[in-house]
């Protein structure tokens, strides 16, 4: 990635983690996966989509859902292999961060399963 991955961009990548989605679906997914904490506007979302497209983290996908579920005005995006890698690296970085935070007692230790 040429530019730094912002939290909102990461959320978009995560939203696409379980399959291709169109714009409104991404907005909904981000809202749901953050319990309504992060609400992206269309402007912000498409600025992010543009960035991610340029970086090659996502791509528009050609095959569309069955006609009865589709709307011609929508476009669908999916994660590329590179994009998934970026998201994984970001998640791992966060995991390490969390681990450090636990060691320093910022968070409670996880009980052994």
């Amino acid at each position: 990635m040429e530019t730094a991955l912002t939290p909102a961009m990461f959320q978009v990548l995560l939203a696409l983690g379980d399959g291709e989605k169109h714009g409104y679906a991404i907005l909904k997914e981000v809202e749901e996966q953050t319990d309504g904490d992060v609400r992206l506007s269309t402007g912000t979302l498409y600025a992010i989509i543009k960035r991610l497209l340029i970086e090659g983290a996502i791509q528009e996908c050609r095959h569309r859902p069955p006609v009865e579920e589709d709307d011609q005005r929508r476009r669908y995006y999916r994660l590329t292999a590179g994009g998934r890698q970026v998201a994984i690296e970001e998640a791992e970085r966060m995991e390490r961060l969390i681990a450090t935070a636990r060691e320093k007692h910022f968070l409670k230790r996880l009980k052994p399963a």
Partner: protein
Amino acid sequence: METQKQTLSERFYRGLLRLFPFDFRGDFGPEMEQAFREQRAHVQAGKIGLFRLWWETIAGIFTTAPAEHLSMLRQDVRYALRMMRKNLSYTAVAVLTLALGIGANTAIVSVINAVLLKPLPYQQGDQLVMLHQRADKLGLANIPYSVPEIQDYRQQNSTLSDLVEYHSMQFMLLSKDDASRVRAGVVSDGFFGTFGVKPILGRDFTPADDRQGAPAVLLLSYEYWKKHERGDPGIVGKTFQMNDREHTVIGVLPPVPQYPNENDVYMPTSACPFRSNPKTIANRNNRMMSLFGRMKPGVSVEHCKSDLALISSRMVQQHPDAYPKEAGVNTAPVSLRQELTKGATPMLLVLLGAAGCVLLIACANVANLTLARMAGRERELVLRSALGAGKGRLLRQLFTESLILGLVAAVLGVLFASQTLKLLVDFTARLTPRAREIQVDGYMLLFALAAALLTSIVAGSVSALYSRQDLAAGLKDGNMHSTAGEHRVHARDILVICQVAFSFLLLVGAGLMLRSFSKLRNVDPGFVPQRVLAMTVDLNWSKYMNKPELARRIANQLLDKIQSQPGVLAAAISSSYPMDPDNLGGWNRTMLVEGHPQREGQKPPLSSMRSVSPDYFKALGIPLIAGRVFTESDDDKVPEVVLINRTAARHYWRDEDPIGRRVSFDQGKHWVKVVGVVGDVKEFGLDQPPGDETYLAQAQTRAIGSIVVRTSQDGLNIANQMRRAILEVDPQTAIPNVETLEHARNASMASPRVMTDLLGIFAALALAIAAFGIGGILALTVNQRLNEIGIRIALGAKPGDLLAMILRQGMTLVGIGLAIGLASAMGLTRLMKTLLFEVQPTDPITFAGVSVVLGAAALLACYIPARRALRIDPLRALRSE
């Protein structure tokens, strides 16, 4: 109802999307609308949810749109820089020509701003006027004022709040260690207050200083104080010996433009031995002062004029002896600003016009280069436009490119302008005292920036306008090489025509100046200036005044001493010398010619006077035409005799012999005999026609003003030797000015020379840019018609025909440009009339010469790409398709 509401909100959303860059909207607009539609459809019921959606949407657009614009700009700049690097030679030419254009304009606009536009650096400068006393019927425009006249105007006027007098004289200033000549401004009390000028050190003159018999005091000019007193802060109170009196410095003036003379020191009228003489004060005909006034608030120059005219008509009635009816004496005010800048205005405006032309040509060139480069990228542009890359995007790209070019050029231009400004200041200083106000300032930078923006917009929109129209055409046609861009071909043609026309204008301007200058240079000055040294010699005149025997002896001693120096061929004492910068205007007297009674209403003959010792004519190489020159025996013991010049001889005696005739300079009280006629001399400048000249014998006038010496070697080499010799005779002598007459002659041509040089540089620049433009266009055409030319060659077209075809295309444009340039030059060169000497503004030789030069340069510019066309390999040309 519901659908209508939806359309309204959709329309509003679409409006908001306009805040995004064109391309972004093109890429994502419809999708965003769709997403928003879905958001709206699923929004929780209730006003709050809807409000929240709008709020978040608007805030999101307002934060992301500027960022998108910025990133696009960054991308455009990067792309533009890459394109510029890729076409380095094009870029260099565009930037350099633009920089020269912007630089030249910036420099000249700085000068014009300081000299013509800015208010005078005096308090309420627009209220200041200079009074001109004129004798309309005698053709005299600037007669000085006498003391009784000044008193009349001061007492009787109702429109001036102040009326102050001024004259300038040269005096010897003696300090402990040396003697120097200073130019002293003699002013009445309140002079500096009228201008709103306050001394930066010490105090101004007071009414007490101006009273008869008051102790003599001096104010120093800023420049004199800096240069001769090294800016000594303790200067107030220092004393100088001048005119056999002690003068005390009371203050130092700030740096302000001084007019009519740049004076070293100022003194009150009481300190000037001439002005304070009771005879001067009483004599209405003893005129030597200039008058400056400040108009009362709300008074116009017109109003002031009628006020003063009333006073002068009253004076003419009351003193018929002082103002003969046939003279038509009156007084009129001229605004000081106009007075200060009248000499510079025409030249500066012509230079501005020339610089403007260069900028326009450079601008056309940049537009042309951009167009040419776009043609090279035609395929890419057509494709991008077809794919919906957006015309807006392309326009943006073009403007970014030309803006970067413009800004780089502006930076270079300002550098160029600040480097050349000194040259321009020196030039302007010859024309107006306001030259000192010229400086590199914020206005200059602002102007350069504005010029850069303007050129970017002009160049950018010219190319954008045409690219926009024909991209679609190019796509429809398929064959981009030959027919795409009909419009653009026209645009480029028009640009080339403009370049040729403007270049023609500039070349004609420069050509006229050049012709005028060469005429001026070839004027016979009437003397042989080579190896003649002229020295201004200022004796401490108070020592010799009223002591004729002493004055005669010192003159003889000086001449003997100079003549005994090695290398001196001839030497003479004279009151002044030709083209003496301190004697412009000369010493004139009305002359009565015996046997030619002056008729009623006729202008009394005025003759310029000079007193010279016998060898003056030999030293200067002035030919004797009839009679004899002065001899040693023409001294104060015998009756006075005079010599006249050829013009005077023709003027008064036509075919008769003037030798032995008599003239009078005191209305017939004394008559003096003409003993010889000598050749005409251009006394006051090569462009001035010779007037009537009379020479008096130095031994009879005893005037000593300068010494002229003809030497066997280069004049200035023995200058120091001469200086020493003069000081040995009288160490209290100042020799402020030593120059060769050749230098004096060249100096008199300095302004036309600089003007010629500047216009010449501009014209050469224009010619080069235009030639480059024409050549570039043709090269491009050849490139675009590569396969057509290839086919023609393959089909057996003769090289001569091909050459002619391409040359015809180029030269047709040049011909149209020449015709337009010719027509506009016919009209515009009239504005240069005052700058030309013996050359008509529509001088056919100049016009023809310029046409030939420009035509030849254009032909050469066309020939180079044309020849390249002939060398095209038809096979390769066809394969390239």
